[in-house]
């Protein structure tokens, strides 16, 4: 501790001493406003110069009137006269030619030399409008990246680059952090995925800390990622974290400290429109009190029914659910209150969630070494009461030159995230399910808050009857929040150790060990006294992935015009997974004691472990000719333990080429033009243990063992999967880069897809592992940006990202008619040849030739006899429109993103209509009270199937919402998932240098931001069309959706 003070004191003295005649400022990128590190700042005519630090800040001694020259590779050099002590400049990336991006295996390459599409984002994209899951920050910012997210508090975010190729396997890109392939497992169960209940624990990539990110490169498509192997066949997201290297390179020595703090507030902003005219009950009569003596004369509602087809909320005095708890001091006991619309509705159930982030980082450098140490704490409470997420990240990176030729570096990260009180999702026990899909509309949240009697017993609105307080189908929602709790913790360590040795000017060698390790522990509790059998369960998952790499790199100018760089390397990947879970049987013995030993009938324990190893040899060669022709060749061969011995090896090559057209083009309007072409083939293996036949072991019956033939049939003849793809692109910058255009077309085919194909159960198996399909993805990606206004003080940029992907299942193995992902309430999500992966099937309306719905003689819609395709989860196109406006020290950014098409099945709509909670079940579009006994009934729009006349038969509204809706005709609750969302807005203000003069602070900036501010357009009523309950391939089932949240926050960054 004393040392720290000494250090700080020394640092402050140094800083103060240097302040006297300083000129300080910040150099930023005019395009994205980000600080530019490593910019050379020189006083013209004097032998004085410095480089900007990692934030783009600099300070040097200069006199008023001196001219400073700012220069940086890839940017137009700028000269500015010193006028005072502060001087900020914005450098134009005039010559984009030399922009450097991080590509596969962390190799930095000039972007112009690449034959495939790469887009990069800087730290600001992740920290200025922070969310706890970095994947969400990619939304709308990069063409061809489709992100689907749940709500806050550590829920899932699914990301797809250029669509999905695998049917049941992983379609998400590989995440690589400082060379470490990161696990992004989801572990969600089938019910969770199809909106049928469970907790959303999110996917594991959310462990990444936004504050530590230096840059993110998105490598779309296999050509970019061939070198990462099969896992990158869906593309790769290559993340570099901050280190002390930039600081060292800028010439700084000693220590630098920076702080970044933020607070964000989350609020629920999409809730269904409910009806408020009719209360709970199966019908409009009060309960039959005459069947039970001594219940008195006051009307008794139907507490046990979880729908709202009950009596009109007309103020009749009734015994509400909470008037039957005969406990001392219970003022409601025996009281009657009016049967009227609630004064405390669903929105009152939710609170404002608060997320506070604090980050401090220390950077240091000497001539031989550099390091960065960073600590981040995220402390978040959810919109659901009693829910929280707490994440601590400690990250260290350091490098040391051991000798002139040998450098050692280490990067280590420790992340601990703790979740508690995550809300249940989906149809089933979730509170949204009991508010929308089922439930009684007259209930008051305020009154339900008192969820426990004096003796600890449960008070629920859904008591079985006046005389029977036991819960029928639903727990009190507050009981659900406070008694049935869960918590989880994941401790994760990842990082690498790297040795680089320079053999000579041509050859260097690198060896490294990369590791990702975590232990993920989950505990779930169900209290005694609720609807569900009380229980306690815990599960622990442990994952370790180790990669050992060695590369021989070479770079050589073969002639003045021809340059060659490349490497040959080897990689071994070992992945170990273990899971141990235990749960109580037969309920709990002792209330409130949550241990597995407390099971009334004992407990059950299960364990699973699996191991996989892949050995690889890989090589790459890149040629550059006259700095305008470029060609890359890569090859990789894998040997995977998961495939049968005779088929366990597969080779995959790639070749890319690019040509800088503008070098040979003499058109002043064209400042840069490039065409590129890439081709790649990527092999893929499968999960462990899919080749040999084994038995599934059940729990013992008494002392007898019990085992069964597994539901899925394994396959000893599996072959590796193969993806072939090509892409072509054009980059064009016009009018001194004021207009920037990047276009890509790609076409990719995956064959011999390995998956677990559902088969007719009469075969004795419900599925079989087969090489069973061929899929195709083709599409375009377009990004267009322009700078319409640019003056010394003002710059306005506007841009759009757009992507369209067409996906098709080309063929399936013989005898297989279709692939079933999942099904719920008769709606299935399938893949059939000729259709996109993920097509909904269910009963549809019958239509006449003119497109009118057909109605039977009783006034009901006719349903098709067989199931029909109802739409696909895949959108027609996606994208985002962004704008930035920079005026002096103010910077404004806004992002609108959109999705056109895609289909979702909404069980909130389906069951909300069935159970009479939603607005339209009481008041129709014309404002008629359709349940009024005097109202004639619902006449559905359509044509009588036998007469051809317009339907005129009125039907009872309850029957209408039963028979004419998704419960019977699935198409009725199938919706278009298009949306336009105001995704992000932020306003940042960098304090001018003269304002922070005389303080120990530098680079002070403050910003306000908002995320998910508004849904500007959608076509599905009552819910948010963006549905994600897991990161799996099963998407598009909305059930009891957690309400969408809006985030508004403030950020403060400063350095010492």
């Amino acid at each position, binding site marked *: 501790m004393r040392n720290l003070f000494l250090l700080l004191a020394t640092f402050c003295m140094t800083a103060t001493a240097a302040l006297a005649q300083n000129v300080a400022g910040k150099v930023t990128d005019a395009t994205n406003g980000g600080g530019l590190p490593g910019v050379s700042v020189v006083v013209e005519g004097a032998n004085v110069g410095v480089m900007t630090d990692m934030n783009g800040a600099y300070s040097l001694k200069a006199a008023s009137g001196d001219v400073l020259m700012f220069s940086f590779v890839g940017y137009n050099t700028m000269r500015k006269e010193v006028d005072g002590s502060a001087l900020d400049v914005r450098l134009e990336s005039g010559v984009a030619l030399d922009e450097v991006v991080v590509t596969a295996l962390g190799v930095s390459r000039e972007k112009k030399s690449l034959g495939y599409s790469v887009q990069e984002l800087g730290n600001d994209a992740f920290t200025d409008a922070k969310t706890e899951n970095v994947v969400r920050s990619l939304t709308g910012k990069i063409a061809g990246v489709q992100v689907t997210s749940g709500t806050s508090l550590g829920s899932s975010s699914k990301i797809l680059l250029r669509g999905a190729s695998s049917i049941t396997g992983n379609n998400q890109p590989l995440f690589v952090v400082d060379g470490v392939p990161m696990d992004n497992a989801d572990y969600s169960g089938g019910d969770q995925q199809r909106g049928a209940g469970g907790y959303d624990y999110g996917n594991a990539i959310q462990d990444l800390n936004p504050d530590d990110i230096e840059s993110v490169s998105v490598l779309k498509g296999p050509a970019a990622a061939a070198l990462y192997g099969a896992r990158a066949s869906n593309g790769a997201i290559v993340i570099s974290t901050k280190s002390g290297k930039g600081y060292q390179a800028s010439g700084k020595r000693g220590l630098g400290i920076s702080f970044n703090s933020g607070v964000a507030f989350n609020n629920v902003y999409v809730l269904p429109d409910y009806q408020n005219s009719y209360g709970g009950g199966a019908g409009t009569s009060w309960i*039959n009190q005459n*069947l039970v003596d001594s219940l008195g004369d006051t009307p008794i509602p*139907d507490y046990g029914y979880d729908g709202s087809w009950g009596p009109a909320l007309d103020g009749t005095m009734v015994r509400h659910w909470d008037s039957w708890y005969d406990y001392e001091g219970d003022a409601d006991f025996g009281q009657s209150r009016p049967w009227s619309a609630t004064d405390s509705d669903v929105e009152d159930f939710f609170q404002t969630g608060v997320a506070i982030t604090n980050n401090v980082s220390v950077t240091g450098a000497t001539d031989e070494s550099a390091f960065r140490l960073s600590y981040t704490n995220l402390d978040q409470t959810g919109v659901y009461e009693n829910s929280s997420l707490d994440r601590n990240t400690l990250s260290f990176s350091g490098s040391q030159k051991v000798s002139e030729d040998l450098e050692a570096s280490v990067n280590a990260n420790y992340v601990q995230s703790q979740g508690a009180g995550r809300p249940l999702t989906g149809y089933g026990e979730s509170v949204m399910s009991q508010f929308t899909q089922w439930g009684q509309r007259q209930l008051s949240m305020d009154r339900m808050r008192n969820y426990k009697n004096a003796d600890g017993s449960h008070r629920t609105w859904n008591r079985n009857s*006046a005389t029977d307080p036991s819960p029928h189908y639903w727990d009190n929602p507050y009981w659900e929040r406070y008694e049935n709790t869960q918590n989880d913790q994941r401790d994760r360590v990842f990082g690498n150790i790297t040795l680089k040795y320079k053999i000579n000017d041509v050859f260097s060698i690198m060896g490294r060990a990369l590791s990702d390790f975590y232990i993920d522990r989950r505990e779930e509790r169900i209290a005694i006294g609720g609807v569900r*059998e009380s229980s306690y369960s815990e599960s622990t998952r442990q994952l370790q992935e180790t990669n*050992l790499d060695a590369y021989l790199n070479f770079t050589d100018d073969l002639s003045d015009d021809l340059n060659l760089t490349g490497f040959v390397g080897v990689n071994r990947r070992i992945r170990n997974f273990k899971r141990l879970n235990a749960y109580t049987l037969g309920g709990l013995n002792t209330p409130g004691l949550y241990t597995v030993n407390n099971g009334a009938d004992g407990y059950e324990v299960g364990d699973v472990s699996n191991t996989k190893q892949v050995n*690889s040899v890989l090589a790459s060669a890149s040629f550059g000719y006259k700095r305008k022709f470029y060609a890359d060749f890569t090859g990789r061969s894998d040997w995977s333990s998961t495939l049968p011995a005779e088929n366990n090896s597969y080779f995959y090559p790639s070749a890319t080429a690019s040509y800088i057209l503008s070098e040979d083009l003499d058109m002043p309007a064209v400042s840069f033009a490039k065409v590129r072409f890439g081709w790649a083939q990527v092999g893929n293996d499968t999960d462990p243990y899919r080749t040999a036949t084994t038995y599934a072991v059940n729990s013992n019956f008494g002392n*007898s063992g019990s085992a069964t033939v597994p539901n899925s049939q394994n396959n000893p003849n599996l072959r590796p999967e193969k993806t072939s793809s090509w892409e072509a692109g054009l980059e064009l910058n016009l009018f001194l880069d004021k207009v920037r255009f990047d276009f890509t077309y790609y076409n990719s085919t995956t064959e011999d897809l390995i998956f677990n194909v559902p088969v007719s159960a*009469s075969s*004795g198996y419900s599925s079989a592992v087969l090489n069973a399909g061929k899929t195709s993805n083709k599409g375009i990606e377009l990004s267009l940006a322009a700078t319409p206004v640019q003056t010394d003080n003002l710059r306005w940029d506007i841009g759009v990202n757009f992507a369209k992907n067409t996906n098709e299942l080309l063929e399936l193995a013989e005898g297989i008619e279709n692939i079933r992902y999942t099904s719920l309430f008769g709606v299935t999500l399938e893949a059939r040849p000729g259709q996109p992966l993920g097509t909904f099937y269910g009963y549809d309306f019958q239509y006449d030739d003119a497109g009118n719905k057909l109605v039977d003689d009783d006034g009901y819609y006719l349903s098709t006899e067989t199931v029909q395709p109802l739409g696909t989860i895949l959108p027609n196109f996606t994208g985002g429109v962004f704008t930035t406006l920079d005026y002096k020290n103010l910077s404004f950014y806004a992002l609108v993103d959109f999705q056109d098409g895609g289909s979702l099945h909404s069980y909130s709509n389906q069951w909300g209509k069935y159970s009479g909670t939603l607005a339209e079940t009481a008041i129709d579009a014309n404002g008629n009270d359709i349940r009024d006994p005097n109202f004639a009934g619902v006449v559905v729009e359509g044509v009588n199937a036998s007469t051809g006349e317009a339907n005129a038969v009125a039907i009872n509204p309850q029957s209408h919402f039963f028979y004419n809706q998704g419960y019977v005709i699935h198409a009725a609750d199938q919706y278009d998932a298009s949306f336009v969302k105001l995704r992000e807005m932020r306003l940042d203000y960098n304090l001018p240098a003269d304002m922070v003069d005389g303080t120990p602070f530098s680079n002070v900036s403050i910003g306000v931001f908002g995320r998910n501010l508004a849904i500007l357009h959608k076509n599905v009523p009552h819910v948010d069309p963006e549905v994600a309950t897991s990161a799996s391939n099963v998407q598009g089932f909305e059930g009891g959706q957690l309400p969408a949240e809006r985030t508004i926050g403030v950020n403060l960054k400063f350095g010492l």
Partner: protein
Amino acid sequence: MNKNIFLLAGLAIAVAFTGCTKDFEDINTNPNEPASVSPGFLLTSAQKRIMDEMNDSFWGSRRGMQLAQHWSSNQYSNESRYQFRTETSNGSWRDFYAAPLQDLQQIINLNTDDAEAMAGYGSNGNQIAVAQLLQAWVYQMLTDAWGPIPMTEALQGVDNTSPTFDSQEAVYNGILGLINGALASMDGGAGPQGDQVYGGDMASWTMFANSLKLRVAMRMSDVSPTAAQAAGESALDGGMIIAANESNAQFPYIDAAPNNHPVNEDYKTRNDFAASNTMVDWLSAMNDPRLGVYFNPAVATDTYVGEVYGLDEANAALTPNDAVSQRGDAVLAGNLPGIYFDAAQTHFLCAEAAERGWSGTPLDAEGHYNAAITLSMQWWGLTDADAINAYLAQADVAYTTAAGDWKQKIGSQKWAALYMQGHEAWAEVRRLDAPALNACADGHLAGDGNVPSRFEYPLDEQTLNSSGYGSGVAALGGDDALETKLWWDVN
């Protein structure tokens, strides 16, 4: 020098990395699941899973017990009004075919292909026999629920993922083939290990085989009387039938999860069913002592009141649970046995065989009728002989004086005795057309309003096996509808 060392090291690493795939077989050997198990484990699993599914809340309670009108819904009454959820059809189909039927097939395959290794778990012939008998039992239940089903092409895995459906007549012949094959396969050696039903006692399995054959024959008796009589008489020949409760084929559930009775498990968290008025009214009218075992009096009135069968949701929900009789304590017990075949059933079959003039019944029709009722009461713990005799002596009960023809007498009493065997009760109601069950009080939601003749095929077969599904609909000789009569259901 220094640099050469690095190069050499690099080369060595490269060789070490790639040369090493010889561990792959070990690495890819599943440590979590065994490559071989005792066939006894498969038998235990199959015996339990059949009964788990038969007593499951959807297949057993919502369908079997409600179609027999033993129970009524007190909420969500769709199934009691003949609207069946497609999801539960999918699930039940899968839970029989891809689970117990396949496990039993595996026992047969192992004892055929790897006889020597399997001989230590019971003689090959006896293991095969028991597996075939349980398959026969399941196939009969499945074909009686749907009609034509896959049998000859079923259970072949990826070799045939689109099995053709066999006509119900073919299935019935196949079932008889399985039973006869099993009887022939029994070889006097040791019984199978893992047998929770009879503990490997092959004499009991012989009784089971003959009793099941009698039931199969009787189901065919209206449509194929000659073949039925031949099969029935061969079953009765020799007297090896389940004639006493001690010989019942039942699965011995234990009063602790996960080995407790499924109805007990379901009741822990839900109470969706109450006594149906059909059954309460019949038992009350007969002064039947089983009323107090099958059901409890309504809490509110302390009298036996059945919930009206086939109410719509609103009306079902308006009836407080306290106001109607709930299921009895014995019914909800965790250790209630799951019934494959009981002696009461055999005696009812024998009574009918006697009426039909089949030879070999030990007693006359009346004797078997009285024995059946007596055994049913005794099984439910009603052991007071005087009370039973008093019951049998009642004019409404006594075989000679009870109302109706022999079909109606036997049908009604058999229906009452088949409590907790909903699917068998439903099948016999369809075949004997007795007793007359109630129409749904608030109308039916699907079918023609009569007790359904069958279920519609699961949606899964339409989408995963469309050719098989087509062959099934063709073999049905009518629509894939609830009211399409099965082959044996000629009246």
